[in-house]
């Protein structure tokens, strides 16, 4: 019984720790950037804002190129 118990892996408890571990498993820098925002104090709000920033950067970068 005790042996059974000992084999149970310890969970990653905090959101920051979970996000860090997910981030380790991905290679897309954009996804890493979004996950970094998700680790902030207002996770969902920061995540949405970061995506908006990313998309606006695309729009503006192309504008500059056009200019």
């Amino acid at each position, binding site marked *: *019984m*005790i042996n*059974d*118990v*000992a*084999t*149970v*892996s*310890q*969970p*990653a*408890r*905090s*959101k920051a*720790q*979970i*996000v860090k*571990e*997910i981030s380790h*498993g*991905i290679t*897309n820098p*954009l*996804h890493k950037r*979004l*996950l970094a925002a*998700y680790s902030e104090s207002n*996770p*969902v709000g920061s*995540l*949405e804002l970061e*995506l*908006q920033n*990313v*998309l*606006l950067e*695309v*729009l503006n970068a*192309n504008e500059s*190129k*056009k200019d």
Partner: protein
Amino acid sequence: MKARKIDIAGFRGFNERREIEFDDTLTLIAAHNSYGKTSITEAFEFLIYGQTSKVQSADSKDEYKGSYRNVHLPENENPKISLTMSDGDADTVYAVELRGNDIVRFVSGKEVESFPFAPLVDETVKPFILQHALKDLLLSTPAERFANFAKLLGFEALGDVQRELIAFCTKPNPPREVLLLQNKITALEDRTRRSGLTEIAKLMKKGSAPEVLFALIKKEASKHVPRTTKSDLLLPTLLSVRDEAVARIFGGSTKIPSESSEQALAFENEQRRILQLLSEEFIKRYLGLATTHAQQKVRQTYELLNLGTLSLADDESKCPLCLQPVDEPIRLHIAERHKELQAKETVFAESQKSADAISASLLDLKRSLAALAKSQTDRLASLAQLEPQLSNLQKLLESEPDRFSFVRNAVEEFATLTSDLEKSNDAFNKAYLSVTESIQASTESSATMDALVEAVTTSMKKIAQLREKANSTSGSLQEIDGIVRLKLDALAGTQDISLLVDLLQAETEFIKKATIDVITHSLKDLRTSAEQYVGKRMSESITGGFGTSVMSWYDKIKTSTDPKVHFSGFDLKKMPQGNRVQIKAKSYDKELVSAVSSLSESKLNALGLCMSIAINLQSPGPFEFIVIDDPIQSWDAEHEDQFIDVVRELIEIGKQVIILSHNTKWTERMRTGCEDLGGVYYQVSGYDDKGPHIQEKDWASVKDRLANVSGIVNNPSADSITLQQAEQEMRHVFNQIAAGLKKRMFDTKVSTKNLNAEGTRKILLECNVDLPFVNKIMQAFVTVDDAHHTPEDYTVHRQRIKQYEEYAKTLLDNLSKARRVAGSKP
């Protein structure tokens, strides 16, 4: 840490202070429902976590507002809980006091910000098994179950991450600018699909890359322009081809360029700057020029005198013009006059500079005003040229008379506004001329400047009106222009050329959209990564050691007579909405849909208990105790007894078990089943506005123990092990009687659990039991010393145990006659 004692006052169901001491291994608290059992568990929870799980999981926190404070607690007192815990070396008292909504914490009487164990408890499973929490878990909807399981397993954040990331990746929320771009491209794609450009439409449908798509668009466009057209001139040439074709039918346009936010800002800044040019300071400086002109004569005299003075420099004795002699007084007079005029000349030079600056400002004003007016009239150029073609436009918009009226009215209104602006510009030019002439003629006046200020103000007003009108109509006019264009294209047969022009003009936007699409589509990969991680972690937990552990405990509760319809493990199922935890069950080896829908309430209750036990053992945290609140629910006696074995095993593993139960019959059997382990037993005999009435009871009564011993020694087939158990019972009997004597004579409570031979001997002597008799009793303890080592010559002896029974009866007689010793506390 083990729990030694809890003190509760003014909290939940407790009004007056109550103290409950805990046994190192097993404490049993029996109480009818509503006698304050759950308040004890909640006191533990509140002390450790600062809130109870009931409040934490409540939908409406308002319903629980103020519910921690006992309603009967006097107003000048605060709810207080203190928990004494031991880490093996020393006892520490952890206490909380609820002051209004603030929780004040103390460690051994000293106020602290937080308890030292706080960081550990945040990361570990709570040391409680609560019935309401188990029901919430098992009976939750499948969609909620993952989050509830995650919460129970200490994976609360895992559930949150799954829910939040899936929602975000499934439905991202792009900014408005991106939505506008996407709408524009979608509209162009729709037009292409409806057009004759089928190959291009196919590529669009396939989602081809912009470079592939535009290679085809350019190839198609090149068919409509001369072969020699260079690639960089493809778009303007195509545009010319289209314009020339439609100009044969209608050469106008109703389009007014819309004003960008940058243009709007520039316009407003220029407006402010022009008005600042006509500042009060400027007007003062202009009017000050009149004084300067009065000095013009001084300048002429000075210049003449200067000439004379210079001539005199050659020969001071005679006049250079008439050659008459000049004496000393005249020479001095000339010198003084020259000096005086020279000073005035300096002032005049400064004034001249001022006049130049004013003239420059006036010129700036004129040019700026003209430029501002032009910025708006240029926007209306196409509309201004539309007037002669209105009849043609009317024909084109025959089926849209309202739209034509809109254009005609706009043309007329713009013509009126432009005419007004021209008139105000004429007035300005006149006023401007008057001001500049007044400067030259030295006739500056307030009236001249007032006329200029008024003319500028009027012109600015007219420009603003024109701009306002242009802004308010540009959207509708652009829409009408689109309709006109479609009609013209239809009439001229230039639909495809027109579409190709629009596509080529939107090439950059197509590229932008493609990049944005790549980003938003990639969020699916992020979702997959998150789901895989969350699923893996959860799967490891529920199907690995945890699942095995739950199954092992579940097997201990089930009985051989149970129908073979049982919990069979956990699984993780991937659903479109995310991972879901499945609780599996089998009926005679055949898989059932779900344990929740198939198992009886008693089995679900057993499953919940087993899950909680497995989780607590998996991640014990800083506490060695586990509080089990009312575990026995809707079970038959056989299963209830099986659970006694589960408790015994928990104790053997090293857990300090604290059980609260409403089931008094079961608690009785529990004490019997764990008689050899001993423990502390409380009975809550009543409840009133002061709180529960808690009484400590013997684990087993002396009478019961003696009856048990008697049964063994009188059983001829009792083996040596059973006889040893009887001997052990006798030691409990002597300890309990000694504790009883101490209580009766000195009103001092002694826990029999902690008594050994020495302690019992000391009490008996203290309670005036004769020394020779005490020594006889002590023989019962000689057979087993404190370290539980049996002496070599020890053999269990039936007759000796019978002798101990006689000693016990004598001691009981002493107990019945014992009186309180004078001087001991009442």
